[in-house]
């Protein structure tokens, strides 16, 4: 058990260190997120009020699109010089690889969410009514997205068509997360009179289920 946590930490910190060095997130994904926000604003030709109403949906769609990039990048790191072969030969528990990479993606997504959050507040003039609901939903939803994303990243890794296949496999499955997180955000941003904490509970439940499913699938996927 101690070994498992140590290995998870090793893999996560390795991925994050690589990210800090290569700055793909900061130089490419974050600007991409910003562009999405701006494009939505222009394409919807919206006045400030409707942008505020749509803010939570646009926020989560941006997160999902950025997640696709982060997942893809996370797999590329292991594929570029076949480091994945080394990981397989190291005798490390496949669960550690899965959770380690999930954590790394989740942390990156969390940073992106903060960035996007500031973005919708500044650009769409969203007002935060329930800060903790925002934070907890953001945290859990991004874990769910990362866990399922890592599994599907592994599933499709090694295929030439990974970049195109990943979205059609992953996005429909994440629909419940999208709905739950969007509704919770609607309440937290004060644009819908609903109980956002109920939606948060739903998202949290989904996170537990999807992470467990991912871990199970990971064992099935790991060669034996």
């Amino acid at each position: 058990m101690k070994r498992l946590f140590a290995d998870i930490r090793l893999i996560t910190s390795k991925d994050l260190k690589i990210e800090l060095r290569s700055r793909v997130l900061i130089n490419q994904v974050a600007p991409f997120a910003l562009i999405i926000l701006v494009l939505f604003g222009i394409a919807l030709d919206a006045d400030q009020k409707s942008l505020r109403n749509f803010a939570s949906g646009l926020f989560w769609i941006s997160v999902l699109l950025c997640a696709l990039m982060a997942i893809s990048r996370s797999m590329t790191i292991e594929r570029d010089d076949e480091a994945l072969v080394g990981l397989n030969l190291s005798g490390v528990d496949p669960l550690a690889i899965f959770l380690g990479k999930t954590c790394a993606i989740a942390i990156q997504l969390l940073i992106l969410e903060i960035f996007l959050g500031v973005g919708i507040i500044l650009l769409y003039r969203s007002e935060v009514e329930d800060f903790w609901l925002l934070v907890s939903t953001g945290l859990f939803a991004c874990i769910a997205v990362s866990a399922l994303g890592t599994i599907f990243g592994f599933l499709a890794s090694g295929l030439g068509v990974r970049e195109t296949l990943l979205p059609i496999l992953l996005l429909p499955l994440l629909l419940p997360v999208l709905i739950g997180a969007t509704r919770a955000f609607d309440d937290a941003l004060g644009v819908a009179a609903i109980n956002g904490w109920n939606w948060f509970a739903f998202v949290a439940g989904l996170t537990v289920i999807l992470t467990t499913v991912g871990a199970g699938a990971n064992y099935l996927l790991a060669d034996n």
Partner: protein
Amino acid sequence: MSVVKLDGLVALLEGFPALTGVDLTVNAGEIVFVKGPNGAGKTTLLHLCAGLIQPKDGTGSILGHDLSSERTEIRKRVGLLSHSSGLYRDLTVLENITFWTQIAGVEQSEIDSRIVWALERMELGSKLQNQKVRSLSVGQKRRTSLAVFIVRRPDLWLMDEPHAGLDQEGRQIVDDLIEESVGAGATVIVASHDFERVANLSTRIVTLSGGAVLDADREGNR
């Protein structure tokens, strides 16, 4: 005791039969030189011995573990030096070696001394150690891969073109390492095109062709 025992092994690579029925036995302490033209199946043979490929047909065991059902066990005990570096480009030499040593589950107390030993052995000086792998020359990268390879101290050494990209000095280090490892109880399989060099190093030469063993009994010059 035979370290590698393959019997009629067939292995596929993306639907192509890279190995068409390999019979091969390698005993402990041997240095086996696998030669053969491009596409003969040398690399696939090494990958198979590393437990990375599920055989399509035939039976085999590596280090006493079954090749079909106990590949996880096999993987922990073999080292594979392949064409690609297996390194993370954006980490430094030292970070790469540290990561791979830690992830391999080397005893905490032993980690530092092993890393120092591997770096010294591959003559990776302190200036190089802090360079990103991305900025290394081919030879330096190869040395780093070799350092990662030896730091785990595998029982079965599987080396694909170990001399490729190295200078004269580097090649000599590889030769010495192989000699030493056998002295320490390891078994080595080297796939290479550098006939002269590896033939002088090995105890036996195996010729591979068309994904099968053509000749396994020729003696090496060691």
